[in-house]
């Protein structure tokens, strides 16, 4: 049995090995500069060294803190706003245009303004992450609550449920999958924005670490930094799916990017 699952895992993950081998071959072929495309062993070595020295954990911690603060604030504000938009007429008429027109506008363009308002430190980055994440979360919550089956609402009310009970037992659970879909869109955005803003004006964080390493031709360090941000992105996404499946246990998702 164990052998079979092991064979299955190899069968499933062989493409990763193919890509890594291709990289190693390219590195050794002499066609490209070894400095620009270092061998896998070199990257692993630099990664391990920078992990041990505390460099990568330090910068990764700062990036992670910023991304999660902005993301967390956007969840709190976005879910509340989305619910209000779906349930209260005047909130909807005031905010719906702001969200439908603002949705396709790249909010990242406001970063220079944010620097002036909130300074160069973490605050301007967290604020921009908050703003970028707010849109998908609010819009998905809004649509989720809107599409709750009316019959469920009527039945709940008919059976004497209080407004609070209707909210917690009917509205929120029905909108749950949609809300989590919004979170899943927003999470990678928070990482994108934190990396960009750190590349532009910062002396801490993984975005800075990567751009600094590249600028000083330490490409192996740059790859190590990318490895770190890749790992963070991957783990956070898996974590979000894990939490989602615990909360919305009646409609689990599984598989690669489900």
């Amino acid at each position, binding site marked *: 049995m164990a052998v079979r699952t092991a064979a299955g895992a190899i069968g*499933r993950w062989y493409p990763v090995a193919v890509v890594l081998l291709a990289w190693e071959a390219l590195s050794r072929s002499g066609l490209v500069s070894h400095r620009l495309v270092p061998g896998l062993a070199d990257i692993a070595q630099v990664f391990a060294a920078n992990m041990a020295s505390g460099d990568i954990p330090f910068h990764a911690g700062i990036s992670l803190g910023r991304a999660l603060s902005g993301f967390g604030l956007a969840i709190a504000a976005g879910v509340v706003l989305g619910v209000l938009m779906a349930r209260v007429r005047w909130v909807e008429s*005031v905010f719906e245009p702001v969200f439908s027109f603002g949705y396709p506008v790249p909010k*990242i*363009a406001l970063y220079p303004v944010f620097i002036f308002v909130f300074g160069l430190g973490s605050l301007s980055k967290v604020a921009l992450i908050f703003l970028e994440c707010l849109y998908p979360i609010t819009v998905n919550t809004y649509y989720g609550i809107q599409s709750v089956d009316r019959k469920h609402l009527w039945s709940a009310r008919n059976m004497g449920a209080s407004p609070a009970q209707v909210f917690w037992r009917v509205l929120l659970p029905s909108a749950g999958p949609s809300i989590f879909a919004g979170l899943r869109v927003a999470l990678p955005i928070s990482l994108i924005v934190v990396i960009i803003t750190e*590349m532009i004006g910062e002396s801490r964080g993984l975005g800075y670490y990567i751009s600094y390493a590249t600028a000083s031709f330490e490409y192996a360090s*740059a*790859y190590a930094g990318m490895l770190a941000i890749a790992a963070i*992105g991957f783990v956070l996404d898996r974590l979000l799916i894990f939490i989602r499946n615990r909360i919305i246990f009646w409609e689990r998702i599984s598989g690669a*990017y489900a």
Partner: protein
Amino acid sequence: MQARLARLGKGLALPVALIALWEVAGHTGSLPRYLVAPSVIANTTLSMALSGELLSDTLDSLLRAYAGFLIGACLGIALGLLAGVSRAVEGFFDPLISLTYPVPKIALLPILMSWLGLGDASKIAVIALGVFYPAFINAYYGAKAVNRLHVWSALNMGATRVQVFAKVILPSAAPQVLTGLRIGLALAFIVMFAAEMVGAKTGLGNLVMEAEASLRFDLMYAAIIAIGVLGFASDRLLLALRRRLLAGRMAGHADHA
């Protein structure tokens, strides 16, 4: 009609009130320097648009965003549809995509600039990479979700594999493919702007940074507005395209925006 107008009025209430407040504060001089009054911004934007100053940067940005979008979208859709119909292709791409999907692709920008140079190629490459993922994933799901019965019926009636692909799988996957394109388009503009802010000599992102550095705040807002308009107009263009492509099949479908 009247109800619609009333709705529109309410919707405009918040933005209009904010802008009016901003304008008044600008004239009484109680704003910090970086918040230029809206009328000044409008003036600069208009005069720069008319004189053509804004045009060359806008065209540069647009070219990068669209080139990256087209490359990423074509590759993503083609491979995604293939993965949806072929076990072998699916087996190869599935683990790679699922591993790299949550990784912020913009982190590759510095290294892409070392590989491809500081010119347009590196920016277009990172935009294409960002667009590829949503295009691939949605095309893949669209092709996978095809009703098996339709495929079997087509095969049973003697359709070739190519015909099945063109007449059954492609049309049925189209809505999902377009959803992926819409996500990709929004990403293309974010990545374009970010790439231009980090390392470009032209383009709107670079204009914003330059204007900010030389404290020309009116210019900065003009560039920001131009980016907003481009992003918004491109999205509307894609929606119009979707309506044409899916004409008659989207009855009762509420648009996302």
